[in-house]
């Protein structure tokens, strides 16, 4: 009978993982933290935010970088999630993300989790982080096909065809439900380059997280 699992190594831990899973899913199963933004369970992996990059090598080959959310596990895979190269990459990515959308909570969360307190780029104020979750939600789960990307490069945005609501949209609001920009906005930026960072600056707000629960990064977290 064919084996239904494969053996992989993540950060030195030898794990047995179901075939067909991605590195990210395997990591989550075993409690290994890999940051993500554009990934959501039950939606097709997109590989857009690149925050989940890890170093992968096959059978002692030269390690290369790829996203954990799109990479399927196979026997003998060796994954590193905490190398200096990965940490540097995540930090810069988080910095880029939070500089473009400082008032989106997920961006602030990721930035503080990466330990970023200062942004070296001029701040912008985008509400959309272009994670594409709404599009995939609409397409894959609601069969709506009402949303898509338009434009290219920095002009990219989420849009309905010809900017009008198509008949296929049933106003299910799945897009709104899933959108990370719809969560109560962060406190925002006062000085350019400053971050919210309330949860890491404990000395400023000692009672930031009254419950002391892991994963709560801001006092307004509705979760």
């Amino acid at each position, binding site marked *: 009978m064919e084996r239904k699992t494969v053996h992989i190594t993540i950060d030195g831990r030898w794990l047995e993982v179901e075939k067909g899973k991605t590195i990210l899913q395997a990591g989550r199963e075993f409690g290994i933290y890999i940051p993500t933004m554009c990934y959501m369970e039950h939606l097709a992996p997109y590989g857009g935010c690149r925050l989940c990059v890890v170093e992968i090598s096959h059978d002692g080959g030269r390690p290369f970088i790829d996203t954990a959310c799109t990479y399927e596990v196979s026997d003998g895979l060796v994954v590193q999630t905490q190398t200096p190269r990965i940490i540097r990459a995540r930090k810069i990515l988080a910095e880029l993300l939070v500089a473009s959308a400082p008032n989106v909570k997920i961006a602030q969360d990721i930035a503080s989790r990466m330990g970023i307190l200062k942004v070296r780029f001029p701040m912008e104020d985008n509400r959309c982080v272009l994670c594409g979750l709404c599009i995939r939600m609409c397409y894959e789960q609601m069969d709506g096909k009402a949303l898509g990307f338009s434009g290219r490069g*920095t002009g990219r945005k989420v849009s309905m065809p010809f900017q009008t609501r198509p008949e296929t949209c049933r106003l299910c609001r799945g897009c709104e439900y899933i959108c990370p920009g719809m969560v109560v906005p962060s406190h925002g930026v006062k000085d350019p380059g400053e971050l919210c960072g309330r949860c890491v600056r404990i000395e400023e707000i000692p009672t930031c997280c009254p419950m002391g629960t892991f994963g709560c990064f801001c006092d307004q977290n509705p979760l």
Partner: protein
Amino acid sequence: MRFTGCRGFCERGPIVTISPLGIFYQKVQEKDVDLILSETVKKGKILDYLLYEDPNTKLKALSEKEIPFYKAQKRLVLGNNGLIEPTKIEDYIGIGGYQSLAKALFQMKPEQIIEEVKASGLRGRGGAGFPTGKKWEDCRNALGSTKYIICNCDEGDPGAYMDRSLLEGNPHSILEGMIIGAYAIGGNHGYIYVRHEYPLACKNAEIAISQARKAGLLGENILGSGFHFDVEIAKGGGAFVCGESTALIASIEGRLGEPRSKQIHTVNRGLWGKPTNINNVETWANVPLIIEKGSNWYSSIGTEESKGTKIFSLVGRVKNTGLIEVPMGITLKEIIFDIGGGPKDGRKIKAVQTGGPSGGCIPASLFDLPVDFDSLTQVGSMMGSGGMIVMDEGTCMVDVAKYFVHFLEEESCGKCLPCREGLKRMGQILEGIAEGNGDEEMLSLLEELSEVVKDTSLCGLGKTAPNPVLTALRNFRPEFEAHIHQKKCPAGVCTALIQYSISEDCVGCGACANICPTKAIVGEKKEIYRIVSELCIKCGSCKEVCKSNAVILQ
């Protein structure tokens, strides 16, 4: 009389050659036609003023062979462009075309063809240099009965046009290569993905396909061999990123032209989820040659790891610009000084940028470097599609880096964060440096950002996008530092850091005042003019027009 495709020597076009004497006339105008017919064709008299004159030696060249631009070249693929009319299949067959196809279909097994291509050492000419035979073998061995063959002609690098010239000038050689490849791989359907901005290439390819169908070279039962294969044209909307294989496939399928993760290669799961073999135009055009003359002959050209010839488009500050085809392993010096004829206006050549926006700038100190896939990668550049832009002292490296980053920022599809946001930020930093607002910290941030964009981007576009910046920083750091510390642009390009003024050599002719678009030059005739710096937009028109060299650039 034949209207041929591009002869490569763009600098001297339009070109007329007269066979069998091989007389080479350049820069021919409409008014010269009568003279050529009455003098040269009828009486055999040579028109001196239409001959090519070597700008270095002042010698006139009678035929193509005597011209230094052509002498050092080895035009295996491109050479036929000048012999045939692209819209006539008879011309192509007349020079031995489709013989390789007949040989492949009737004398060789598909596995033999793949072995032959593998033995030839042919590597993908699209830029990455993946061994073609290996790709074909993988695609042949991939599971599935339906397989697709694609020719990638989505060329969009600034200053590169060899794929276009091949498809325009000799479309049948590409078709022949594709049919041989399809037979070897076991595919029955092919696409030529060509960008909409190449109307002549589209038209000539369409004509070639319909002619080939009529001649029984495409469609059912090709040449009676029982093998069937057909090709259609897929037009691209002009997105640079669609040259990337997965984005190209998405575009043919009618989806948004965006790349996807490539853990599973296109040879296993490509177009419509089926195994797909994508090769560049030039790669396909090399195939008939290998089948015709054998892998031994082919692998005798070039270096250990890179075989055959490569077409480059040589542009920039050299005397002879155009399309050149050279054997792999030729040095940059030979290309720039022998074929290119050296610097244009006596200025010193500083660097050459190879591989288009994905490549890097190679400084003059490394001009002894042999041109092949691996040595170019070693110095941080790449073969790319084969653009070669020569730069002299009048080129500012900060400006070059800025130009390429802005180009890619606009052409990025925007799917992944590092490419979309990272390139934008890199552009902002370079903009700041060019305006004299840079500091040491920005430079290190630029370097760090470049490394991360290179590491984490989704597709080849983002992964190679920082190359021009990184190589410019590595090889021309003093220039960046001059912008930051001295607030000076050594090449005199970055407008924020330069100043025009008029010296005492001014004879007061007033030519500069007339040409100035903002009326920033004031003064009286026969007296020394003066530039009002508040109004000056630093366009440089005054310097160009001044006959007494009185306009100084600081």
